[in-house]
């Protein structure tokens, strides 16, 4: 069971080309709520972070509105991401093949997937994006509450708020960098975006990048699992 690499809802459809269900409708809606929140948070946060980006507050209806909206969008992001976390955490647990994959980062970056081990639903890069986002969002909501002046300023000392505002800024920058990696990887590896738009990828994409996942799906291991949806 430990090598089982399939999530509920994953499915293979024979045909030409083969189609593979990767994300359910609920997972995709959950993802896009998170994505939109994160982008809005990055824009409004950067606007208050660097004076030369202050003009971005115009998108939110001015400085005061940006200050009002940013934390609330943060709350949306936190709960939305929590949904993603509980959907995806299990298949993002680190495995030995992930370390092998990481040690061949050169082959990853040059697109020589044939030199890489067979990967389950997520590769080491995706897992690192997943876990770093999980940690960073936890840090961001925690430090964000401390500096949410309107409702929470009375519960902490000014010195604690100073630390929180610095931690918040650093964590946000790291989160934006991780987000760039995430988005760029989805663009660079062609055929990936459809997983999050229509929920499907082609069999060839799965074969090339997540062969273990495809093989597990095809061999129908999910039938052995209680409460699992029939795969084929």
């Amino acid at each position, binding site marked *: 069971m430990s090598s089982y690499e399939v999530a509920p809802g994953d499915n293979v459809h*024979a045909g*030409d080309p083969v189609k593979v269900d990767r994300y359910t409708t609920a997972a995709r809606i959950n993802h896009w709520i998170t994505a939109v929140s994160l982008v809005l948070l990055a824009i409004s946060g950067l606007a208050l972070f660097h004076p030369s980006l202050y003009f971005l507050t115009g998108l939110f209806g001015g400085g*005061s509105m940006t200050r009002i909206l940013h934390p609330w969008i943060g709350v949306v992001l936190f709960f939305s991401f929590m949904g993603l976390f509980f959907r995806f955490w299990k298949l993002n647990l680190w495995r030995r093949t992930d370390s092998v994959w990481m040690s061949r980062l050169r082959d990853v970056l040059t697109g020589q997937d044939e030199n890489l081990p067979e990967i389950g639903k997520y590769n080491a890069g995706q897992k690192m994006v997943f876990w770093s986002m999980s940690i960073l969002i936890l840090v961001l909501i925690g430090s964000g509450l401390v500096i949410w002046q309107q409702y929470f300023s009375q519960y902490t000392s000014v010195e604690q708020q100073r630390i929180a*505002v610095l931690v918040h800024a*650093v964590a946000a920058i790291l989160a934006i*960098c991780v987000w760039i*990696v995430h988005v760029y990887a989805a663009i660079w590896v062609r055929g990936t975006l459809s997983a999050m738009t229509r929920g499907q990828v082609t069999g*060839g994409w*799965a*074969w090339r990048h997540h062969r273990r996942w495809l093989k597990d799906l095809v061999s129908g291991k999910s039938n052995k699992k209680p409460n699992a949806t029939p795969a084929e």
Partner: protein
Amino acid sequence: MFPPIPNPTTQATPPKFGDADLIRKSASNITPAAKRQTEVAKLIDVSKCIGCKACQVACLEWNNLVEDVGVNVGVYDNPHDLTPNTWTLMRYTEYDNPESGNLEWLIRKDGCMHCEDPGCLKACPAPGAIVQYSNGIVDFVKENCIGCGYCVKGCPFNIPRISKVDHKAYKCTLCSDRIAVGQGPACQKACPTQAIVFGTKDEMKKWADLRIKDLKERGFKNAGLYDPPGVNGTHVMYVLQHADKPQIYAGLPNNPTISPIVELWKGMTKYAGLAAIGAFAAFGFLHHVVSGPNRVSDEDERNAKRLTEGQSR
């Protein structure tokens, strides 16, 4: 007695300083005013204060502020802390002097110190919400304030307060509107003992020297001027009987500076952060240009087909 500032005429007077005299403006790059006006300062002589709170009342009066009715918890401080309406506050300390054995009443008029290097202004993200005039006055511009509370984190003296009503930051203006027409601040005008005097910073330092000499003659051997160098001096200064221990005056900081955390946040982090984001984006762009897209080949699709048909049918 320090010569009092004469009463104003009834004629309208043009303001002596304005936007052309700014030397700092929050979240903005400005060219500081070429010629600096004479620096002004308010000198608060704690040894002369009788704790009458006339300054507090005058501040409310002049600035048209109303404070809520408070609760008596057995101390003279009223209200208990600075608020969005109380921009200046008498803080009472009963000090048991271990050397003389006397009980001393230290009454410090708390409020904005108008730092030469203002932490609030450094922390503020809203362009023009905090400004510093060339005469040294640090002022909040309400229309530009967004209520984020960053000034609270930047201030080494814990002065700004955010209103729960309009969510904007408030603090002492040093009565910039009065000073602009040649008057002293309202608190100074109201003080019955000249514990508060106002003039140019040089005048105030000279006057303080006389006061310190007097105090020393009367046995306060550590009397001195509080004009902390950590913030490049302030435009509100204290004469303290015990200048070696400012903290006994209701927690007046010993050596106030802008917190290194705030300096890091508004310094390194700001530039390194944007550079890191730019570097990641640039790496992505270059990688795509050099490596090209990672495409699925026809052979991949054929392999997938073979796998699916071989095992699932």
